[in-house]
């Protein structure tokens, strides 16, 4: 019930943000009605295809510090890949590597895999069970992932991990 209510409030906030209408009662009630419809459809879908409880992450300094860190990594990787593309010799050394993620929850592994794919130069090719396959554009990128800095940071987001 709390889940449905928070989804409804989220949808209403999004509707207000996108429509920009705050003073027309008829349109506001239509917006509230459409949010209710969305919550109903989401409830129906949830019965067919249940989702893991989403709020398994610890809200703390780690979560706030993770995004700027990821943004910095993305910018650095962008500059590196752009330099390699503009180099006339095209200095790439593609590699396919296996990783063992240390996150325990599914959500943690998905955040890890998405972070890898968002960073240019590395793409997650498969995520099954507790192993992760990554295609890297360069050997340096593959070595940086094997060193496991990002893995430790994402594992630190999970509840109960140090």
């Amino acid at each position, binding site marked *: 019930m709390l889940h449905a209510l928070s989804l409804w409030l989220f949808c209403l906030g999004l509707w207000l*943000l*996108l429509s*920009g209408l705050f003073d027309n009662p008829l349109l506001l009630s239509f917006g509230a009605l459409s949010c209710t419809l969305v919550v109903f459809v989401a409830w129906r879908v949830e019965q067919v295809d249940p989702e893991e409880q989403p709020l398994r992450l610890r809200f703390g300094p780690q979560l706030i510090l993770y995004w700027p860190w990821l943004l910095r990594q*993305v*910018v650095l990787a*962008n500059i590196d*890949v*752009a330099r390699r*593309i*503009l180099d006339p010799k*095209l200095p*790439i*050394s*593609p*590699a*396919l*590597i*296996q990783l063992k993620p240390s996150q325990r929850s599914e959500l943690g592994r998905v955040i890890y*895999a*998405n972070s890898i*794919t*968002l960073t*240019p*130069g*590395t*793409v*997650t*090719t*498969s*995520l099954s069970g507790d192993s992760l*396959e990554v*295609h890297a*554009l360069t*050997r340096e990128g*593959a*070595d940086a992932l*094997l060193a496991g800095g990002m893995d430790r940071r994402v594992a630190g987001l999970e509840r109960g991990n140090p």
Partner: protein
Amino acid sequence: MAWLIDGLSWLALLGGVFFMIVGGVGLLRMPDFYTRLHAASITDTLGAGLILLGLMLQGGWTLVSAKLLLILLFLWFTSPTATHALVKAALSDPENPRPLLHEDAPSSKS
């Protein structure tokens, strides 16, 4: 103050266009499909990010900037998903060529 924000926004727009064109050139220069994906992800992350940041600086604190931020967040959440679906489909297709690998790559699978 206004000229500073204006200058920053032009700088962000020009940087975004630069990264986009680099990504486009990479899309044509890279030798096989799997390496081209990395070039495409440049345009999706920093190219789109810098252009939308430049537009947000032009928009100021308005509803338009909030929408631009929403577009940016949406692109950054969906582009890894689309890339992953693409590479997974390509790898599971037996007729698609395997990725070219560098010979002395670390713990590579043949």
